[in-house]
């Protein structure tokens, strides 16, 4: 047994969960991430102040940058809104990425079929197809969980990889632009299947409004309807929900299918919006980043909006760091990972408080167990 010259703080369970720390914890996590970021910049031989400025201020110091921020936040906001529904009900849907990719794939397929027509309906068809594709893709883990008791974590992850390979197959095969010099890309979409820009001089498109609309609807749903209440109950205690006569399977379908629809819409909005065609790299991991967004935003709509903006900023900061400072693009992903870790660590303060007390000297068996902490 190693004896430390000072006593380590111990965790003591609070009488009841601290609401203060529920909302303070993300702030603490962000602060710790920024601090670690500064250390990483030092380690990379950069001025930490300049590094943090390049990463978190420079990308958004003009209106064009702010518009880009909203463009990047929109898909994550859609996915995280759906994920929040699932996570509240204790459904571990890790599959937003695959649902988004299927939305992009089938949204593009539909767009290519109808884009030679006039009017707004071709765009509607493309968005609708993408949403339905996402819905059906999320339906697979829902059916498997409800009727075969299959763990949704593993199935949704596997389906992400399947979706990515289907997308790659499509851009290398049936959806490849015949006039595209053999690049793995679809033809460029016509204006009839392109989301209209809502802010002149920028690329900000109407998809950002879809995201805000979705998050508002889900907010009302969660806080004002019986379905929202039921989801929360089965998330906290599934047996209590069953005892109350809630239809758990129907709720699982509801949460997963809603999430799939929103993620599919996100995918379709990406290809018909900022990208304008189907490419292999539709998503730089938006579906995974949305998991962090959902947790960082405390599964609450307002929190999720703020968290998706922050996560979008991290993506843009990563690009800016690469261009201006020559840092690897992956620094952004590293920040995302750290943020989630620090959040989980800070979250311990919701249920526990730190106390400094002397280690019990007697009863060696007991202290041996505590030493193992």
């Amino acid at each position, binding site marked *: 047994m190693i004896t430390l010259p000072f006593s380590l703080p*111990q*965790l003591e*369970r609070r009488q009841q969960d601290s609401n203060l720390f529920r909302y303070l914890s993300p702030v603490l996590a962000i602060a710790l991430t920024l601090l670690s970021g500064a250390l990483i910049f030092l380690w990379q031989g950069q001025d930490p102040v300049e590094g943090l400025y390049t990463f978190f201020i420079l990308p958004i110091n003009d209106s064009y940058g702010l518009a880009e921020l909203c463009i990047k936040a929109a898909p994550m906001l859609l996915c995280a809104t759906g994920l929040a529904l699932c996570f509240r009900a204790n459904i*571990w849907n*890790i599959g937003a990425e695959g649902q988004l990719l299927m939305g992009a794939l089938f949204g593009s397929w539909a767009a290519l079929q109808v884009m030679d027509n006039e009017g707004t309906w071709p765009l509607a068809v493309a968005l609708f197809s993408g949403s339905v594709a996402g819905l059906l893709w999320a339906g697979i883990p829902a059916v*498997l969980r409800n009727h*075969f*008791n*299959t*763990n949704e*974590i*593993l*199935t949704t*992850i*596997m*389906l992400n*990889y*399947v979706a990515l*390979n*289907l997308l*790659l*197959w499509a851009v*290398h*095969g049936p959806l490849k632009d015949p006039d595209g010099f053999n690049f793995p890309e679809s033809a460029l979409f016509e204006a009839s299947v392109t989301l209209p820009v809502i802010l002149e001089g920028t690329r900000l498109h109407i998809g950002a409004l879809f995201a805000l609309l979705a998050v508002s609807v889900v907010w009302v749903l969660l806080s004002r309807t019986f379905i929202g209440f039921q989801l929360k109950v089965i998330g906290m205690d599934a047996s209590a929900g069953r005892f109350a006569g809630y239809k758990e399977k129907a709720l699982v379908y509801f949460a997963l299918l809603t999430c799939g629809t929103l993620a599919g819409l996100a995918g379709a909005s990406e290809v018909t919006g900022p990208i304008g065609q189907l490419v292999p790299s539709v998503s730089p991991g938006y579906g*995974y980043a949305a*998991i*962090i967004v959902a*947790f960082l935003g405390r599964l609450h709509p307002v929190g999720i909006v703020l968290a998706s903006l922050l996560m979008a900023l991290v993506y843009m900061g990563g690009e800016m760091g690469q261009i201006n400072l020559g840092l*690897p*693009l*992956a*620094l*952004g*992903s*590293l*920040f*995302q*990972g*750290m943020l*989630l*870790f620090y959040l*989980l*660590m800070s*979250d*311990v303060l919701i249920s*526990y408080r730190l106390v400094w007390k002397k280690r019990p000297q007697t009863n060696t*068996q*007991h202290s*041996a*167990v*505590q*030493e*193992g*902490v």
Partner: protein
Amino acid sequence: MDIELITNILFAMVRSGTPLLLVALGEVVCEKSGVLNLGQEGMMLMGAVTGFIVALTTGSLALGVLAAMLAGVLMSALFGMIALGLRANQVATGLALTIFGAGLSAFIGADFVGKPLVGFAPIAIPVLSDIPVIGPALFQQDILVYLSLVLLVLVWLFFRVTRAGLIVKAIGENPWSAVTLGLPVLRVRWLAVAFGGALAGMGGAYLSLAYTPLWAEGMTAGRGWIALSLVVFASWRIGRILLGAWLFGLASILHLVFQGMGVDMSSNLLATLPYLATIVVLVILSSKQSRIRLMAPMSLGKPFHPAG
């Protein structure tokens, strides 16, 4: 199919099954102690990148493997700190470990993408490797393949004949009774988590130092998750992990089989097969719910703390 094709397929099957075997062996020990670490993918990636960088800069593959195992242990310690020390949700912590590992490995490996490295060479065991069909698959592999099989036997013996193995299982079944017996629950769980980290790191090193000797971002391509499914497939039984690793290994080299049989199919579509196979297997197994419930360690995934 001719004999030569079958021989080649078996050889490739054992190779592609080896990282799965290593990671699943580590995870099964971890799960037997009651801890569910979903961070295998992140630990593997860190093992792969660390092993590659160390092997490339020192010129020693062995050092690379050791460094990869150390990286895996450090990653698992991060998991232990949060899931065991701070009693956080194990599922969320494991996910965080995977996301963090993916980011960190991409960051530190950025300068090493696409650099060439001479990986582990096969060592033919005299006489045995001349056995037709199965000889090359089992006795003409690199040292890590042999090592993974030795580890399999050791883990099997550990649970079969040692008192320590019994303690790990007891803790996984019921940590509360274990603690009343005076067993150091958290210390054992820490060790099990660290063992899982070491083997996941080694599984990653197998990819970057032997299977395809190079580093590419996200090169594990979901193998950590497949290994997690493999533990369920094996119903937490050590012997079956080998069978599962080879079956999943076969699923991921099916494109070779199809090419050998002259079937022309998109490589992207064939690449979905191991993932689809994993889903099918999970569905078949989990639809018999009673069986999973009987076989899984009782306290799997539930946080435990003696002080409450």
